[in-house]
């Protein structure tokens, strides 16, 4: 994408051109909610802020977000060294994964091994220590960091394996809470 366009999209989301993806997401969600719904902020200036103008803004914001998501995806795959390996997920494995009710450390390890992914690659790609991933698989909760961080690590783990990261994280954190984090 030409840099000028890119700048325009960042501007539409009220961000500086070097803003990270996380800010693009949160700004998009905020602006979309702000101009799609009524709130004190917009109704206080309602006589100027017409329905159609608001609609235009929502469209601009949507467009900017879609374009920027593309931009970030292309950007991430650019550096040749740290590319995430593509792997083929067999139908059989897909079936198996979709049948899983609740993800545990052991199951994650099983899926990873079936996909032929090693933890070292995962660690260097995600910039998260290999030790943490090992502990996640072993459910060695006492050596894992606080829940907010752990959640982030599990999400990265799941994303790397192209799993539904939110579900995996929710399941895993639930186990973490139930099975003891009494350190």
């Amino acid at each position, binding site marked *: 994408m030409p840099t000028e366009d890119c700048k325009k999209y960042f501007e539409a989301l009220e961000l500086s051109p070097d803003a990270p993806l996380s800010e693009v997401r949160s700004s998009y969600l*905020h602006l979309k909610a702000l101009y799609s719904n009524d709130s*004190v*902020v*917009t109704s*206080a*200036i309602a006589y*100027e*802020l017409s329905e159609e*103008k608001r609609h235009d*803004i929502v469209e601009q914001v949507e467009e900017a977000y879609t374009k920027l998501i593309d931009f970030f995806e292309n950007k991430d795959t650019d550096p040749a060294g740290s590319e995430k390996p593509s792997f083929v997920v067999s139908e059989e494995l897909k079936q198996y994964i979709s049948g899983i009710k609740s993800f545990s450390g052991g199951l994650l390890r099983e899926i990873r091994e079936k996909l032929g992914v090693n933890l070292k690659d995962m660690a260097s790609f995600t910039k998260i220590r290999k030790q943490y991933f090992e502990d996640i698989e072993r459910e060695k909760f006492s050596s894992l960091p606080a829940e907010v961080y752990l959640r982030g690590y599990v999400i990265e783990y799941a994303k790397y394996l192209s799993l539904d990261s939110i579900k995996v994280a929710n399941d895993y954190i639930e186990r973490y809470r139930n099975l003891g984090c009494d350190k």
Partner: protein
Amino acid sequence: MNNGAQDKRCEIWAIGGGKGGTGKSFVTSGIGTHLVSKGKRVVMIDADLGGANLHTFLGVSKPRNSLTDFFEKKVPLNNIIVNCSIPDMGLVSGTLSSLDSENIKYVQKLKLFRQIKEIDTDYILIDLGAGSHNNTIDTFLLADKMIVVTTAEITALENMYHFVKNVFFRKLKITLGAHGLKDMIQDVWKNRDVHGIKHLKDVVDHLMGTSTHIRDILEKELSSFRIYIVLNQIRSGRETMIGVSVKSVCLKFLGFNAMYAGHIEYDETVLRCINKRLPFMLTHPFSHVAKEIGKLTENLRDGRQASVMTDKYAHRRL
């Protein structure tokens, strides 16, 4: 003077916001107290000539001098700065005995502005009154940092929008006027239906399109134009997002830059302190409110946006 040329002039901050009762004077006194605690010299000016009471927030019951002396007895501004209970803080009280505050002559106004700029101090904080009178707006535009205080109520937001719109419109007028184009903006606004102009942002866009000369003038002046938003008396974490939202509306519909400087949560203790004439920042230095004022003051000083953690904040009750 002796510290080199860089810090020769003091920085002027003006606090306005349109609606009365949103806490402008409280916020002003809080910011001033915080700056003093950081070793700065501060002069507070109460420019709410109709209903001056900044002194009450600073523990002064009856100021010895006030702007009456300046306007009526021609006393220099420097000589009517009184001490308050906080060391290193001076106060110019706005209590007027008889003067009709809306009829201050143009010459007097210019003289006041000139003398404000000449005060020997680090920061000058100007507390403005409610309303969008031209005198109020011109005083606001005098400042290096223009700060509006609003609460999360719709009435406060309405008046705040009205105020900042007038400020911005006047700024455009003055900017163009300085280049011999005084009537241009009024003409555009009068014929807004012809030009298909609905709001202030359209006016700016229209003006920018008229010629490259005007475009250059406006771009230069407006890139430094910035309004800082302070949210006062908020009752839930969710309400902090209002600051970010207001910023967005200013940018997208009014056509100027705004920055959300921070919030102050609602606290009954503040009211109790005001009623007892106790300077809240000194009596409750470790309260949430005092910390929030400290944080927003530093954001203002550095020209930095308050950090809002959308998800985390949304579920927290204050």
